[in-house]
């Protein structure tokens, strides 16, 4: 199947439903395995940090959730663009499904960041670049959620959120840069694309495992939500009726 064919196929929620079942299981199992391994590795095996002691282990849930929070928003921006340009129903569903997940990731990143901050910097909350950007990101998510609730018709709500998501994604680099320039206290990024991490491998390997685990979890969750949403929206069609009558998977 060529990329073009694949793109056309995605326009059919039914096709996506039919092929996505196994993906849900694969992502879910991978997620569970990776998260269990990564968490155990990070909590019990990795050596404690020279300066921060054992509180640094929070990194293994804080960084993955922060990365996911931002990736999810990028995905929503892309989905919004696809919806506006190609009118793909699936894109609308991806946007709708990602908002709650992304919001919970952002909230988790903020919470774990604050909890980590207390033993490290002595305060539950500091207005530094990363925390402020994450907080603004949370407001952007809340805005998307509120807009979808406020617009009465489903199709219009989807497209309105798409516009807002695209506008948000364009703004995010500017927001991050400006906040970063304005307030800097946070440590430098652990993973830079070109430089080697400042942590030894015994410390960042479990982090990598957990990041992958969270991504797989996102995949599994997204597939699950999409499949449910497809059933909901297409419930009038023959194939869904057949599926339900036959006691579907």
């Amino acid at each position, binding site marked *: 199947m060529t990329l073009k064919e694949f793109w056309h196929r995605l326009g059919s929620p039914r096709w996506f439903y039919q092929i996505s079942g196994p993906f849900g299981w694969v992502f879910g199992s991978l997620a569970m395995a990776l998260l269990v391994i990564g968490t155990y590795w990070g909590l019990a095996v990795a050596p404690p940090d020279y300066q921060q002691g054992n509180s640094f282990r929070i990194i293994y849930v804080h960084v993955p959730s922060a990365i996911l929070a931002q990736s999810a928003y990028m995905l929503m921006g892309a989905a919004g663009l696809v919806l506006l340009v190609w009118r793909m129903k699936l894109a609308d569903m991806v946007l709708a499904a990602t908002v709650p997940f992304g919001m919970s990731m952002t909230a988790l990143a903020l919470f774990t960041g604050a909890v980590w901050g207390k033993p490290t910097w002595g305060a539950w909350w500091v207005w530094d670049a990363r925390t402020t950007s994450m907080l603004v990101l949370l*407001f952007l998510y809340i805005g998307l959620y509120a*807009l979808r609730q*406020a617009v009465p018709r489903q199709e219009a709500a989807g*497209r*309105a959120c798409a516009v*807002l998501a695209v506008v*948000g994604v364009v703004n995010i680099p*500017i*927001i991050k840069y400006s*906040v970063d320039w304005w307030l800097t206290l946070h440590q430098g990024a652990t993973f830079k694309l070109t430089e080697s991490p400042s942590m030894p491998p015994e410390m960042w390997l479990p982090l990598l495992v957990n990041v992958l685990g969270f991504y797989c979890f996102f995949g599994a969750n997204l597939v699950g939500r999409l499949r449910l949403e497809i059933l909901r929206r297409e419930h009038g069609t023959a194939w869904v009726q057949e599926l339900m009558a036959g006691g579907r998977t």
Partner: protein
Amino acid sequence: MNGGLATAKPGTLFIAQLRRELTSTLRSLAEALNPLVFLFLAITLFALGAGGDPETLGAYAPAIIWVLVLLANQLSLEAMFRRDFEDGTLEQLLLLARPLFIPILAKVCAQWCVTGLAMTLLSPIAAMMLYLPLDALGVTMLTLLTGSPAITLIGAVGAALTVGLRRGGVLLALLVLPLFVPTLIFGAGAIMQAVAGMGTSAQIYWLMAISMLSLTIGPFAVQAALRISLEQ
């Protein structure tokens, strides 16, 4: 006039729409000036809250001015498309005007005159009320002048998305205020640097860049949002 919408030259279309906007603003001038009144009322509240202390107010003046400018803008944004939405003019505009971004640009321009431009011109008064050192006054006006187009344009996108929604005002603020963060940072930051006697060109360039970007993308985002809101 309807035929004129579809066949007029862009320049004529822009000027006609702009004239229409400014005329209707002048007719309900009191309503149009409310946000400005709010700005100075809120400054008064800050001054009272801080006990009129020159040092406190002077130190926070950059932040207070910029944040209140953002909030005062919010108040007028909701009304930006509402009147035309309610009497059907907006729908006509969407159906007939080609290219659509021209009358939208004219609307945004009119909105900016009554808010951003007006606030820039009145900012010396605000600066004096808040004990902002007067050698930072030029920078204050410059930041407002270069930052307010971005505020009006980004705000217009939010207004277009929420026109016709019940209680759209608060939702509008929620949608649009996070997007103002960079403008606020560079604006207030520039004034603070000016007070400290340091260079501010970087921030001003950033503000201009953000406004340029908003000017390029904004009208089309507003167009898309209006079509969605009027379900076309």
